[in-house]
Protein backbone atom coordinates (compact mmCIF):
# COMPACT_ATOMS: atom_id res chain seq x y z
CA UNK A 1 0.00 0.00 0.00
CA UNK A 2 1.01 3.61 -0.46
CA UNK A 3 0.86 5.88 2.58
CA UNK A 4 1.02 9.66 2.23
CA UNK A 5 3.21 11.14 4.94
CA UNK A 6 3.15 14.84 5.92
CA UNK A 7 6.46 16.35 6.96
CA UNK A 8 7.10 19.39 9.14
CA UNK A 9 10.02 21.46 10.37
CA UNK A 10 13.41 19.86 10.08
CA UNK A 11 11.85 16.61 8.80
CA UNK A 12 10.52 18.50 5.79
CA UNK A 13 13.91 20.07 5.19
CA UNK A 14 15.62 16.65 5.36
CA UNK A 15 13.13 15.00 3.00
CA UNK A 16 13.05 18.01 0.71
CA UNK A 17 9.28 18.35 0.66
CA UNK A 18 6.15 18.67 2.79
CA UNK A 19 4.69 15.35 1.66
CA UNK A 20 6.21 11.99 0.83
CA UNK A 21 4.60 8.83 -0.50
CA UNK A 22 5.90 5.70 1.21
CA UNK A 23 5.36 2.13 -0.05
CA UNK A 24 4.56 -0.24 2.79
CA UNK A 25 3.27 -3.80 3.07
CA UNK A 26 -0.47 -3.95 3.72
CA UNK A 27 -1.01 -4.05 7.50
CA UNK A 28 2.34 -2.39 8.22
CA UNK A 29 2.58 -0.56 11.52
CA UNK A 30 4.15 2.72 12.66
CA UNK A 31 7.46 1.04 13.51
CA UNK A 32 7.70 -0.31 9.97
CA UNK A 33 7.05 3.17 8.61
CA UNK A 34 9.76 4.69 10.79
CA UNK A 35 12.22 2.00 9.66
CA UNK A 36 11.40 2.68 6.04
CA UNK A 37 11.71 6.45 6.48
CA UNK A 38 15.04 6.32 8.29
CA UNK A 39 16.26 4.07 5.47
CA UNK A 40 15.16 6.64 2.89
CA UNK A 41 16.48 9.61 4.91
CA UNK A 42 19.28 8.53 7.25
CA UNK A 43 19.51 12.04 8.75
CA UNK A 44 16.25 11.28 10.59
CA UNK A 45 18.47 9.17 12.87
CA UNK A 46 20.26 12.32 14.02
CA UNK A 47 17.11 13.89 15.45
CA UNK A 48 16.48 13.98 19.19
CA UNK A 49 13.19 12.16 18.63
CA UNK A 50 10.93 11.15 15.77
CA UNK A 51 7.25 10.65 16.49
CA UNK A 52 4.54 9.59 14.10
CA UNK A 53 1.03 11.01 14.27
CA UNK A 54 -1.86 9.08 12.79
CA UNK A 55 -5.08 11.01 12.24
CA UNK A 56 -3.83 13.89 14.42
CA UNK A 57 -2.86 11.72 17.40
CA UNK A 58 0.57 10.56 18.54
CA UNK A 59 0.73 6.88 17.55
CA UNK A 60 2.43 3.90 19.18
CA UNK A 61 4.88 1.81 17.18
CA UNK A 62 2.36 -1.01 17.02
CA UNK A 63 -0.41 1.10 15.48
CA UNK A 64 -1.41 -0.46 12.15
CA UNK A 65 -1.60 1.92 9.20
CA UNK A 66 -3.98 2.06 6.28
CA UNK A 67 -3.94 4.07 3.06
CA UNK A 68 -6.75 6.31 4.27
CA UNK A 69 -4.90 7.43 7.41
CA UNK A 70 -3.52 10.95 7.73
CA UNK A 71 0.08 10.21 8.71
CA UNK A 72 2.59 12.84 9.80
CA UNK A 73 6.19 12.88 10.97
CA UNK A 74 6.62 14.92 14.14
CA UNK A 75 10.24 15.93 14.72
CA UNK A 76 11.09 17.45 18.14
CA UNK A 77 8.56 20.19 18.81
CA UNK A 78 9.67 23.68 19.84
CA UNK A 79 6.61 25.88 20.18
CA UNK A 80 5.96 28.41 22.90
Amino acid at each position, binding site marked *: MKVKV*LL*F*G*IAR*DIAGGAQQDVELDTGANVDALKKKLTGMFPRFN*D*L*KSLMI*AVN*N*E*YAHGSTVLSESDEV*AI*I*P*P*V*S*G*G
Partner: protein
Amino acid sequence: MIEIRETPLDVAEVTQAVTTPTAGGIDVFVGTVRNETRGKKVVRLEFEAYEKMALSEMEKILIRAREKWPIEKCAIVHRVGTLLPPDIAVVIAVSTPHRVASFEACRFIIDTLKETVPIWKKEIFEDGAEWVSAHP
Protein backbone atom coordinates in the same frame (compact mmCIF):
# COMPACT_ATOMS: atom_id res chain seq x y z
CA MET B 1 -10.27 29.98 23.31
CA ILE B 2 -7.71 27.87 21.43
CA GLU B 3 -6.26 29.42 18.31
CA ILE B 4 -3.31 29.48 15.95
CA ARG B 5 -2.91 32.77 14.12
CA GLU B 6 -0.62 34.42 11.61
CA THR B 7 -1.40 37.89 12.92
CA PRO B 8 0.06 39.64 16.00
CA LEU B 9 -1.26 38.44 19.35
CA ASP B 10 -3.12 40.72 21.74
CA VAL B 11 -2.52 40.10 25.45
CA ALA B 12 -5.54 42.17 26.48
CA GLU B 13 -7.84 40.19 24.19
CA VAL B 14 -6.73 36.83 25.60
CA THR B 15 -6.94 38.10 29.17
CA GLN B 16 -10.42 39.44 28.46
CA ALA B 17 -11.43 36.04 27.11
CA VAL B 18 -10.79 34.39 30.49
CA THR B 19 -12.12 37.22 32.67
CA THR B 20 -15.19 36.26 34.62
CA PRO B 21 -16.81 37.64 37.79
CA THR B 22 -16.40 34.27 39.50
CA ALA B 23 -12.60 34.31 39.23
CA GLY B 24 -10.29 36.30 41.48
CA GLY B 25 -6.97 35.54 39.84
CA ILE B 26 -5.78 35.39 36.26
CA ASP B 27 -2.29 34.29 35.35
CA VAL B 28 -1.11 35.14 31.87
CA PHE B 29 2.04 33.78 30.30
CA VAL B 30 3.43 35.69 27.33
CA GLY B 31 6.20 34.03 25.35
CA THR B 32 8.23 36.56 23.40
CA VAL B 33 11.00 36.28 20.82
CA ARG B 34 14.44 36.85 22.32
CA ASN B 35 17.09 38.66 20.35
CA GLU B 36 19.77 36.15 21.27
CA THR B 37 20.13 32.49 22.10
CA ARG B 38 23.23 30.64 23.25
CA GLY B 39 25.22 33.82 22.69
CA LYS B 40 24.16 34.29 19.07
CA LYS B 41 22.09 37.16 17.73
CA VAL B 42 18.64 36.08 16.51
CA VAL B 43 17.50 37.96 13.41
CA ARG B 44 14.04 36.43 13.25
CA LEU B 45 12.08 33.27 14.02
CA GLU B 46 9.94 31.19 11.68
CA PHE B 47 7.14 29.27 13.40
CA GLU B 48 5.13 26.57 11.72
CA ALA B 49 2.40 24.31 13.03
CA TYR B 50 0.69 21.08 12.08
CA GLU B 51 -2.39 23.09 12.74
CA LYS B 52 -5.19 20.58 13.12
CA MET B 53 -3.15 18.36 15.43
CA ALA B 54 -1.71 21.33 17.33
CA LEU B 55 -5.23 22.59 18.13
CA SER B 56 -6.22 19.10 19.23
CA GLU B 57 -3.15 18.75 21.48
CA MET B 58 -3.83 22.18 23.03
CA GLU B 59 -7.38 21.07 23.73
CA LYS B 60 -6.02 17.97 25.48
CA ILE B 61 -3.73 20.09 27.64
CA LEU B 62 -6.62 22.27 28.76
CA ILE B 63 -8.67 19.17 29.57
CA ARG B 64 -5.80 17.81 31.70
CA ALA B 65 -5.38 21.20 33.42
CA ARG B 66 -9.09 21.30 34.26
CA GLU B 67 -8.75 17.89 35.89
CA LYS B 68 -5.99 19.22 38.16
CA TRP B 69 -7.16 22.74 39.06
CA PRO B 70 -10.52 24.53 39.53
CA ILE B 71 -10.22 26.54 36.33
CA GLU B 72 -12.92 29.04 35.43
CA LYS B 73 -11.68 29.80 31.92
CA CYS B 74 -8.47 29.22 30.01
CA ALA B 75 -7.05 30.20 26.66
CA ILE B 76 -4.09 29.37 24.44
CA VAL B 77 -3.28 31.45 21.38
CA HIS B 78 -0.13 30.68 19.41
CA ARG B 79 1.26 32.62 16.50
CA VAL B 80 2.91 31.16 13.39
CA GLY B 81 4.87 32.73 10.55
CA THR B 82 7.76 35.15 10.77
CA LEU B 83 8.39 36.85 14.11
CA LEU B 84 10.97 39.44 15.12
CA PRO B 85 12.25 40.17 18.64
CA PRO B 86 10.32 40.99 20.84
CA ASP B 87 7.14 39.77 19.07
CA ILE B 88 4.73 37.60 21.03
CA ALA B 89 4.74 33.92 20.05
CA VAL B 90 2.21 32.59 22.53
CA VAL B 91 -0.27 33.86 25.11
CA ILE B 92 -1.75 31.53 27.72
CA ALA B 93 -4.29 32.78 30.25
CA VAL B 94 -6.00 30.97 33.11
CA SER B 95 -8.58 32.30 35.52
CA THR B 96 -9.31 30.56 38.81
CA PRO B 97 -11.27 31.47 41.95
CA HIS B 98 -8.00 31.91 43.91
CA ARG B 99 -4.64 32.89 42.58
CA VAL B 100 -2.33 29.99 43.43
CA ALA B 101 -4.15 27.65 41.07
CA SER B 102 -3.88 30.16 38.22
CA PHE B 103 -0.08 30.21 38.50
CA GLU B 104 0.21 26.43 38.74
CA ALA B 105 -2.17 25.74 35.87
CA CYS B 106 -0.61 28.35 33.57
CA ARG B 107 2.85 26.95 34.17
CA PHE B 108 1.61 23.40 33.55
CA ILE B 109 0.03 24.49 30.27
CA ILE B 110 3.13 26.20 28.85
CA ASP B 111 5.42 23.39 30.06
CA THR B 112 3.21 20.74 28.44
CA LEU B 113 2.68 22.78 25.27
CA LYS B 114 6.44 22.87 24.77
CA GLU B 115 6.56 19.07 25.05
CA THR B 116 3.57 17.92 23.06
CA VAL B 117 2.11 20.49 20.67
CA PRO B 118 3.34 20.09 17.07
CA ILE B 119 4.70 23.57 16.49
CA TRP B 120 8.26 24.16 15.36
CA LYS B 121 10.48 27.19 15.37
CA LYS B 122 13.51 27.92 13.28
CA GLU B 123 15.97 30.49 14.54
CA ILE B 124 17.48 32.62 11.80
CA PHE B 125 20.92 33.97 12.71
CA GLU B 126 23.07 36.35 10.72
CA ASP B 127 25.13 33.39 9.49
CA GLY B 128 22.68 30.52 9.31
CA ALA B 129 19.50 28.96 10.66
CA GLU B 130 18.55 26.16 13.02
CA TRP B 131 15.41 24.25 13.97
CA VAL B 132 15.22 24.64 17.74
CA SER B 133 15.65 21.45 19.83
CA ALA B 134 15.85 19.23 16.76
CA HIS B 135 19.15 17.59 17.63
CA PRO B 136 20.41 16.03 20.86
